[in-house]
Each structure stands twice: as C-alpha cells, then as structure tokens.
C-alpha cells in the first residue's frame, strides 16, 4: 500500500468538509508534503461537491439587492479611478474599544478552554473507539455535543458583538444624531445615530403602520450632484409602531451623505424610491 492509498477514500468527504478532525488533519498533513496526485484528486472532488449546489430549490434575488450591489460597485469603480477612498469593509475592520476587546478576549479564552477540553475528551474516546463500535458512537455523540457548545458560544459572541455595536453607536460622542421629521403626515420624528466605524442605528416610536404588507425603507442621499438614493434597510414596526434597526455596513460613508429619508415601499424593498419620502433628516 502506498502512502496515498490510505487517503483515497477521504477525498470526497474532505472536499465536502465532512471529515472529522483526526482524519482531516492527517490528510492535510499529507497534502502539505506536496503530493500532486492527492492534490489533483482533492481538486476534482471539490468540483464534484460544487455540483451539489444544483440541488438547492431555485430562488430569484430581489431587484433591490442588484441595485444596492451595482451602486456599491459603480461607486468603488469611480473611487478607484480617481482618489483612494476608505471602503465600508475597511472601516469596519478598524480599531475596537478596549472594553470590547476585553470582552472578546474573555470569550476567546473560554472558547480555547472548551476547545482544549473537547480535544482532550476526543483523544480519550478515540482510544476506546478502536476497541468496539459502541464506543465509536460515544465519540460521535461527544463531538456532537462539542459542536453544539461551539455553536452556543458563537451565538453568544454574535449577540454580544451586535449589542456592543448598537451601544457604541448610541453612546459614543463621535456619533452624529440625525432627526428625521415627518413630511405631510402626523407622526413623531425618528432618530438616527450614525457612527463612522460602527454604522447606523435608526429608532422609531408610535410610527403609523404601512398599509398591507408594505414596508418602510431607509435611503441614504449622497452629497454628489445627481447622486441616486442608496437603499439601506427595510423594516415593519411592531404592533405598537416601534422599531430599532442596525445598518452595520452603510453603502455610503456618512461624510459623503447629505440626508436620510424614509419611504413606504412594497414588501422586500425597492432598488429606487417609488413613493415620496415620509420622513427626512439632513446630516448636520
């Protein structure tokens, strides 16, 4: 048996991402030796696995998504051809406040502890696994629980990050407050807080419910002459007319934005406004 023989049955599962850690590590270590035969087989297995995408039921994207994407791409193309502009992606990857770093570090330590603990448990179970099939099932069960724990941790971290982001936007003095006044309707003002790094939090209270299944849609109006409104987010208020939404990655920078506007649009939103703004607020 050549060295490659022991890996032949793993190519497809590796490409699928289904190998358990010990087998995956062994195959990756072998690939790292530069074995061209196995590398080619894995690459072909990736093609085979990619064909499984066609099992997904067909679904159509919304016009709003294309509109948003094309505006972002056109904007970046223009920026690249003129002066360098900081993109939304790079602004979100910049510095994190100390308190947030400390919280994340604590979570990381906790995650590392669970990883170490689960790794130790897996090693013990693997030894028993070689003795009989029953023990092998215990390993599967333990790894399932480990994965579930990891998912719970990921959920906690995600929720914490979102909470911190909203908190940072609402409390950081660097955030810009924008009051959106109702236009030709009797309704309270809405309040938006815009932070250059963390995004926008928009809150509304006692907002009249849009008719039918229509939604309220937030638009960012660019400063550039002739700039088209950029679709940002849609929302339906709750039964009391209240809502809070977070736009983590606004499609245009605050410094390039003249005003925010809210229109009523069909469910799913629109790529360009189809009604007159119901609320408008200028950037200060």
């Amino acid at each position, binding site marked *: 048996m050549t060295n490659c023989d022991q890996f032949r049955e793993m190519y497809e599962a590796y490409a699928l991402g289904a190998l358990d850690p010990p087998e995956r590590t062994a195959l990756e270590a072998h690939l790292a030796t530069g074995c061209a035969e196995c590398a080619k087989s894995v690459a072909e297995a990736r093609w085979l696995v990619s064909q499984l995408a066609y099992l997904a039921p067909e679904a159509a994207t919304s016009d709003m998504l294309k509109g948003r994407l094309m505006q972002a791409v056109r904007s*970046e193309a223009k920026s690249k051809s003129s002066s360098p502009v900081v993109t939304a992606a790079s602004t979100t990857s910049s510095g994190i406040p100390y308190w947030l770093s400390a919280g994340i570090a604590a979570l990381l330590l906790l995650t590392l502890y669970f990883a170490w603990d689960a790794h130790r448990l897996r090693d013990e179970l693997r030894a028993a696994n070689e003795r009989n099939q029953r023990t092998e099932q215990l390993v599967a069960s333990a790894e399932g629980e480990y994965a579930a724990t990891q998912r719970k941790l990921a959920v906690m971290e995600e929720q914490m990050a979102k909470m911190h982001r909203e908190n940072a936007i609402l409390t950081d003095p660097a955030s810009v407050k924008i009051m959106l006044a109702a236009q030709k309707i009797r309704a309270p003002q809405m309040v938006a807080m815009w932070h250059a790094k963390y995004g926008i939090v928009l809150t509304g209270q006692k907002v009249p419910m849009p008719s039918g299944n229509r939604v309220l849609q937030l638009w960012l109006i660019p400063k550039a002459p002739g700039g088209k409104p950029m679709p940002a987010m849609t929302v339906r208020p709750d039964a009391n007319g209240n809502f809070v939404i977070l736009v983590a990655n606004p499609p245009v920078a605050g410094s390039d934005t003249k005003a925010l506007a809210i229109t009523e649009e069909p469910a799913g939103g629109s790529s360009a406004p189809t009604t007159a703004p119901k609320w408008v607020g200028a950037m200060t």
Partner: protein
Amino acid sequence: MFLAAFSPKDDRKASPDAALVRLLLQNDVAAFEKLYDKYSRIVYSLVLRIVQQSGPAEEVVQDVFLQLWRNSAQYDAARGPFVPWLLTLARNRALDTLRLKSERQRRLENQTDELFSVVVAPQYEKELDEKRRAERVRSLVGELNPQQKRAIELAYFQGLSHSEIAAELKEPLGTVKSWIRNGLIRLKEGLRTAT
C-alpha cells in the same frame, strides 16, 4: 502555499467567464453586471437553501459578489473553472453565517485561503447550461436511497461532519461514511456516463 505548485494542465480554451473576470481587473462594471446576471440566481438559491432566510441570504450574496469584485485578481483561471470556485466561496460564506461566525472570527481565520482553493473539472466535463446541469444533478442524486441523500445534504447544506451526521441520523459512523462516499461516487459516475 503548496497548492500553488500544483498547476492542472489547461487544455481548454479560456472560458467566457474567465474573460469577464479578467475585465474586473480594469474596473469594468459591465463585466461585473454580466457575471451577476448570469450566476446570482444559482448563488442565491444555494445560499438561501443553507441559511433559510432571505435577508441574511441576500447579505451573503452581496458579500460574495463584492468579494469577487474586490479580489478578482486572486481568481486564476488556469487553476480551475469559475463557477465551481464561485459556488465553493458562496457555500463557505453561507455556512459561516449559519454558524453565526462573527466578522472577528472570520478575520482571525485566514479567509483568503478559500480564494485560492483549486477546483479542477474532470476531463469528461462539458460546458452545459445551468438548467441542464441542475436537471442532471437532481436526477442522479434523486436515485440515491433517501438516507444516503439526507446524509449528503446534511454535510453539504448544513456543514455537518461525519460524526455529527451519525448523531443526527442515529446511525453508526461507518455507515454514514459509506453512504456519503458511495453516494458521491455514484454521482461522479453518473455525471461521467451522462456526458
């Protein structure tokens, strides 16, 4: 990276998709729109099947296509066809979302690795339109026994490992491994004989 040393023989003509991707290097917005119009449907269908909700699915699709726009220089047509590469990228992003992997976690991992994944189409593969390709794959997987199909779907659409699938289906680990491998081999053989 060791995979860079592996350069599959490119005995096919440069595909129209590869030509469009090359135009992205020149900030060609029209080329980007053509790629989006051609593949956004299959990418969105895949991502929606994984994350199950239209809002997060649209965010993932936007992320995938923006990544294509911003990192087109990192796609090397000599190392594999475009569509499987795009679908692999979309699946990874969608599974990250499914696992609620945070932006920070993604930064901690080397996310650029997946941009360099080598995907090689076998010699028997032909250029087929998306509709015929979908029909062929669905027909072949539909012929598998239901448990076998379920195991493959759990791995592909939910990102579960052999052990996790065994726990989910309450079946022995060895059985699950055989189901998945034999199912994919049957798919491969079916695709080979169908061309």
